[in-house]
């Protein structure tokens, strides 16, 4: 997800956290972004097809495993382990179902020039050990 990018004097500063954005809006330092659900879905890039293919493959695996069990064919431990991973993938897919895929551009939020800009934003902090 691209998030909300704060622009100060035409230059980009950092991505805003939800509480920061809300604070700036309440103090009327930035404009309230108007976004409808269709705008967010429009950012997603061809995800429905890839999700459908992945789910078909998972369903095919589970179906085959059940069929093997019904027909008394041996089931290997590797298949049991894969079934467990399929269950975890199912949980992850449920929670990320509506997340747009591969959003490249953030939503621009412009600082009103009358007030002085914030000194430091949360996402400007760096874990120095990785620099």
């Amino acid at each position, binding site marked *: 997800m691209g998030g909300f990018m704060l622009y100060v004097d035409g230059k980009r500063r950092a991505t805003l956290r939800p509480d920061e954005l809300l604070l700036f809006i309440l103090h009327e330092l930035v404009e309230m972004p108007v976004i409808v659900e269709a705008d967010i879905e429009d950012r997603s890039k061809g995800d429905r097809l890839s999700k459908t293919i992945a789910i078909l493959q998972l369903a095919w695996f589970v179906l085959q495993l059940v069929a093997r069990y019904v027909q008394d*064919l041996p089931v290997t431990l590797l298949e049991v382990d894969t079934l467990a991973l399929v269950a975890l993938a199912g949980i992850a897919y449920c929670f990320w179902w509506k997340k747009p895929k591969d959003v490249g551009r953030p939503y621009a939020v412009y600082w009103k020039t009358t007030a002085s800009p914030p000194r430091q934003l949360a996402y400007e902090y760096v874990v120095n050990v990785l620099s």
Partner: protein
Amino acid sequence: MFFLEIVLIRLHPRQVDVESPTDSWVYFVVTCIYPFASLMGYRTLNSSRAVNSRRVPSLGGYGENCVYSPPYFRLLIILLIACVAGIAFGGIHCLGWNFSQGHAEQILWRAASLAIISAPVLILPFWAYEIKTDNFAPRLADVVPIVSIVIYSIARVILIVLIFMSFRSPPPGTYDTVAWTNPIPHF
């Protein structure tokens, strides 16, 4: 992971220009465990690369201050999802309870499956209490969840090793396909 988080935060307070000891072994360890700490979703730890490219951190930050719901509520939900997923993971491994393999292997498989089920069961109340009381100070009771995590990891490795060991003598008919799947085109 709470413990690791406490270590991370104590080592690196949230300032931009903190000098870090690059020659110490702590530096190496922290660099290795850093992705896991944010993967667990407890804290957003920004890498300098993410800040330079102005990216939103893809993981973590669920415990940050927010007006819509209190942080402990979201942390509890994350903990619950993780523990339920872990229990389901171990439960499905219990389907291999009676698989034909060596006696020692069978006992090991059962023990590892039960360990994977029981570790989240032990972790859940301890960390739920820590989140609810908002007290992450190290205590003696922290030993239980940390040992559970270690046992869970060892059990997972044992399961993977047992899977590969079962390839030595696969049951006859492993390569037989289900009768009705042949006419249907598939990957």
